[in-house]
């Protein structure tokens, strides 16, 4: 593999605080040197003038749909979409068919990723067998096979006693437990956030309490077991406040927020657009604002996409029949820049942290840094580039995005994984 010299970019590294125009020299998949005016004979040069050169972005919450739902997404198509969004690594959620609930499945996903993925793939194992909430899955073997966390995402463990056991077990293996917090009895039948808009539209509501009671339960269980708990896609202000309190008490609790919950709210469902239907649902504008404030205040550890592909036919139905979920890998950075950075809420450095060291810390992975010797996973983006998202040109196999047609300022330009440029924005993408 030839040497790669990324020249004249604004190199920003949240871990060290480094922020300067510099070159990055890469050799054999590793960062060799960072500094101004580097020379390297025989290196392929990449002109990064005007671009930010950041550590590779890591998405904590991706549904790659393989195995089992390859009509919606595959490890290949999903990671291509990830690379087009600037991600160099994604966590693959376990709700595939079969569910990733034992070491053989975990190994299968890693083998498929080795052959077809353009980014790194970190499998997340299930908490319970088949995510049925009945018996603990083979958590220890999955960890040994390469799982970085456990989660019954989308099918939360309703049995508190079982969740306690899972936390005890995961703690012993030093695995974070990622919880999709939803009390299934409170949310049953609901299609959107319960509030004025659901009352107006005649759609059945999912109350904030469905999320809040589960967050409360899991924080208490995390406290009593000492487990590392990561709350996925926080959508309610109340839940975020409880997480902030738990963190203030010193509990090893982390959380993520999705771009769509930062940019949209329940009122945006007035046209019954199924591309705005997901779980947890878009909540009130007050909740949406609280999430941005939580990011500014440092309560939120990561921005994660909850990229959930569904083929067009599944979203072309009556609203109540449409499945939950939206895609988000290609728009995450642009939405986050718009809501958080261009609005003046947080610095660019803090934003990069939310995509790099933040999620790496959640998983306890040593990555997301720019330093000699580190793996050369880099995200190059232009924070000023004006472009319009056309979902029909998405690299994802599914087109269920709420941001189709939106014009953004800021986009990924090139994605480097293990020293190789795996994706570059072409001129016609704008």
């Amino acid at each position, binding site marked *: 593999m030839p040497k790669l010299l990324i020249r004249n970019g604004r190199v920003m590294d949240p871990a060290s605080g480094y922020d300067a125009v510099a070159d990055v020299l890469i050799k054999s998949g590793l960062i060799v040197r960072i500094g101004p005016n580097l020379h390297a004979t025989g290196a392929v040069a990449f002109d990064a003038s005007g671009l930010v050169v950041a550590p590779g972005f890591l998405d904590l919450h991706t549904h790659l749909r393989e195995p089992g739902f390859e009509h919606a997404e595959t490890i290949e198509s999903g990671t291509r979409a990830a690379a087009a969004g600037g991600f160099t690594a994604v966590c693959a959620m376990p709700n595939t068919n079969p569910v990733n609930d034992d070491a053989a499945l975990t190994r299968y996903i890693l083998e498929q990723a080795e052959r077809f993925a353009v980014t790194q793939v970190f499998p997340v194992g299930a908490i319970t067998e088949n995510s049925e909430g009945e018996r603990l899955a083979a958590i220890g073997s999955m960890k040994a096979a390469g799982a970085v966390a456990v989660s019954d995402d989308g099918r939360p463990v309703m049995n508190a006693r079982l969740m306690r056991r899972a936390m005890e077990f995961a703690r012993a293996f030093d695995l974070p437990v990622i919880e999709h917090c939803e009390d299934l009895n409170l949310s*049953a*039948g609901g299609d959107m956030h*319960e*509030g*004025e808009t*659901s*009352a*107006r*539209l*005649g*759609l*059945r509501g999912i109350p904030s309490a469905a999320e809040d009671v589960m967050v409360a339960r899991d924080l208490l269980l995390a406290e009593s077991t000492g487990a590392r708990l990561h709350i996925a896609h926080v959508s309610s202000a109340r839940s975020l406040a409880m997480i902030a309190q738990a963190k203030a008490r010193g509990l090893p609790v982390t959380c993520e927020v999705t771009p769509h919950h930062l940019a949209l709210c329940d009122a945006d469902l007035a*046209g*019954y657009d199924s591309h705005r239907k997901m779980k947890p649902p878009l909540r009130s504008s007050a909740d949406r604002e609280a999430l941005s404030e939580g990011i500014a205040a440092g309560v939120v550890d990561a921005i994660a996409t909850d990229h959930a592909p569904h083929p067009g*036919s599944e979203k*072309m*139905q*009556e*609203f*109540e*029949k449409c499945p939950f979920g939206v895609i988000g890998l290609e728009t995450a950075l642009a939405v986050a820049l718009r809501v958080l950075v261009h609005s003046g809420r947080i610095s660019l450095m803090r934003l990069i942290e939310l995509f790099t060291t933040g999620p790496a810390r959640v998983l306890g992975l040593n990555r997301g840094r720019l330093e000699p010797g580190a793996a050369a996973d880099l995200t190059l983006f232009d924070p000023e580039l004006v472009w319009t998202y056309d979902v029909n040109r998405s690299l994802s196999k599914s087109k269920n995005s709420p941001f189709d047609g939106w014009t953004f300022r800021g986009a990924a330009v090139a994605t480097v994984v293990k020293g190789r440029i795996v994706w570059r924005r072409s001129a016609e993408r704008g």
Partner: protein
Amino acid sequence: MPRGLLGIEELERAEIEAILERAKAFQPGHNQPFAKLDTLRGRLIVNLFFEASTRTRTSFEIAAKRLGADAVSITAAGSSLAKGESLVDTLNTLAAMRPDAIVIRHAASGAPHFLARHLPIPIINAGDGTHEHPTQALLDARTILDHRPTLEGLRVAIIGDIAHSRVARSNIFLLSKFQADIVLCGPAPLAPPELASIAPGVRITYDMREAIREADVIMMLRVQLERQQEAAFPAGEYFQFYGLRLEHLELARPDAIVMHPGPINRGREISSEVADSQRSVILNQVENGVAVRMAVLERILGSSCRSSSSATVA
């Protein structure tokens, strides 16, 4: 009127007034015996009923025929709809038939909006899930105006299962545009507090006597057991606390009228004595159904060009 009629919420007050005024000309008595008009001759109106309906479907059919249009009714039972055809396939089939308007009744809130988004044909909502039933609210308003000079400032009590009622929502949106004083009343789980904020001038009480006191109009709603996921109130207590009986009428204004969109459940939400009393205008509502739907169809199709007939799915 823009294409179609999806709901009352987005209608201008002037638009509503124009429809109500026009409907008067189509009421029985003003045009007797009813001469068939040819306003909509050659137009094809498809009535697509995914849910059972007697009143609404027949009155849409009669309205279309009296205006000279061709009306075809497709009901779920016995059609490909019952065979599991998806809404999007039905939609494509319909587009191929090239109707001038589609009247749709569907159990899912927002189903007419889905059709409207994908078909460049006027869509008329004949009731979508628990969302809206705009022509019902228009005929209710016409009925009130047959007994009152104006809707302005009327005190209206809407009683029953508000949460699951599209009739209630459309009436709330309509009456609110005329600054009516609207009181919603029902068992707490069926009258959630958010409903008070969907339009100005709405409040909620759980005490039926308070709701009826000084009311000009009492609208009773059907208890929609089929839409409830679980028992939202203790079985057997409904009529005791939220059923309309003769003694309640004494609390209302002396000339108060009692309405019900039908079909009524005698002894559940309304006693037989009240349903059959002089105060009841339930049959006037049915009569006005045809008149109001004629006014709506005429407004949507009467003056428009036929460009929509070459429509295909976007």
